[in-house]
């Protein structure tokens, strides 16, 4: 076991792609509901990014079972390991649920979600009550994602900078010292 072992390249690419798209989807989502002039363009972008994330995360879940991740550094104890693996499961769950809730919420208004200009089949019945429940859920899940991602990044930064255990380098690209 090496403490500097990395994730397979495809896992690293999928991770950073997800990170960029999720940050974009969250910020666009929060901004678009206050926007007047850019509302329609931002909604179109948000729906496209959201469904793209759904596809990528499904690929990642398959990849998680077929590509073995590197071991954790020795700085991570048993309790912390439990917290990390549960929070990562929660993140996967949220990343699948959030686009599905968004898609269902648009479907419940009786119109198709549109992704890359293509209308998607509706996955929920036309119902304003169902729309409202899903719409509120979409906001709650967005804030949960913000919290879980903030915890994830904070943990990695603490380990990398305070404990100097190079945990971040498992997910980075490029040449490293000592490898």
């Amino acid at each position: 076991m090496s403490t500097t072992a990395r994730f397979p390249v495809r896992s690293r690419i999928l991770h950073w792609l997800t990170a960029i798209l999720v940050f974009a989807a969250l910020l666009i989502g929060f901004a678009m509901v206050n926007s007047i002039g850019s509302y329609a363009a931002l909604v179109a972008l948000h729906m496209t990014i959201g469904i793209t994330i759904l596809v990528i995360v499904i690929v990642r879940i398959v990849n998680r079972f077929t590509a073995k991740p590197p071991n954790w550094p020795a700085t991570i104890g048993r309790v912390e390991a439990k917290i990390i693996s549960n929070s990562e499961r929660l993140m996967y769950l949220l990343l699948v649920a959030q686009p599905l809730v968004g898609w269902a919420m648009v479907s419940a208004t009786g119109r198709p979600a549109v992704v890359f200009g293509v209308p998607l089949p509706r996955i929920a019945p036309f119902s304003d009550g169902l729309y409202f429940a899903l719409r509120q859920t979409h906001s709650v899940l967005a804030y949960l994602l913000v919290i879980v991602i903030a915890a994830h990044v904070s943990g990695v930064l603490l380990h990398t900078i305070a404990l100097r255990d190079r945990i971040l380098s498992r997910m980075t690209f490029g040449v490293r010292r000592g490898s």
Partner: protein
Amino acid sequence: MLLGIGAVGAFLAVDLGAVAYANDWIGSRFTRQSFIDLFESVSGLHPGFRRNHAKGVAVAGHFESNGDGAELSEAAVFAAGTSPVVGRFSLSGGNPVGADAPGATRGLGLAIGFPGLHQWRTAMVNLPVFPVNSPQGFFDQLLASKPDPATGKPDPAAMAKFTAAHPESVAATNIIKQHPPTPGFADSTFSSLNTFYFVSGSGARTPVRWSFVPRQAALPAAKPGRDVLFDALVRQLKSGPLRWDLHLVVGAPDDPVDPTLLWPTDRRVVNAGVLVLDSVQTEAPGNARDVNFDPLVLPDGIQPSDDPILSARSAIYAASYRARSGEPKSPSAIQVDEVAS
């Protein structure tokens, strides 16, 4: 360790700061909520109803395309054939139980092809031009026309300030005055006012404005009263279908997108088919009550222009829809069963 905590602190400050900024928690900007708040302050809060065009009745029917619109747009709705339609007639204003005023703006929302993949939604009014050409103009006009609690009328000073700042609205209001409203809903022409681009199968983009032009005269209501316009409409729909021809007005490339400006009267008109409305229902769960007639729900073959009113309408309708969908409902003013046929 301190460095680590510092890094985490810096990250969280940027991350949560971005979330707060995007959420508009920092400072206050001009948002769609500003419009919702203004509608509520002008008309009062009426839970479960639209914030504007609150009073209405649901209708259904179909659109019979004659195929002539296919020259301009590849949208499936313009191929010869029939598409189902749900719609809603309405009067402007946020009061769902107010008296029908002949001069109130009449609305017709349509969802053609509802609830399919290639729907075309449109929310039209019986005006020749839109009275404002920017979201700010709409807001300022609504604010200026808010009745003064002391007099029950709009404050003349506020209106004078609005007209001084918005000459385009003065000109549009003069055009509107030259086109007085017809006696009823059934004989009203309902127009898109905003400009769209129709895209043909060969990729040609044409600016288009459309109107639904009535084929019938309006019958009078059985008796005068609060709902005189709606009663007349319901009565007429109970006695038989109502029809409007869809006129696609073909613009020239330099025709104005600004909805306060008319297009030249010599523009070619393509008659694309007939809208047949043959049933009328009290607003109820699952009918047009619950449809957001968002003018940017468009099929392939129809694209929005860069008229800023379009995105603003889409945003504000969405805010109104979200608010009312979570509120308790009360019966609509127009009860179809109570209208004498």
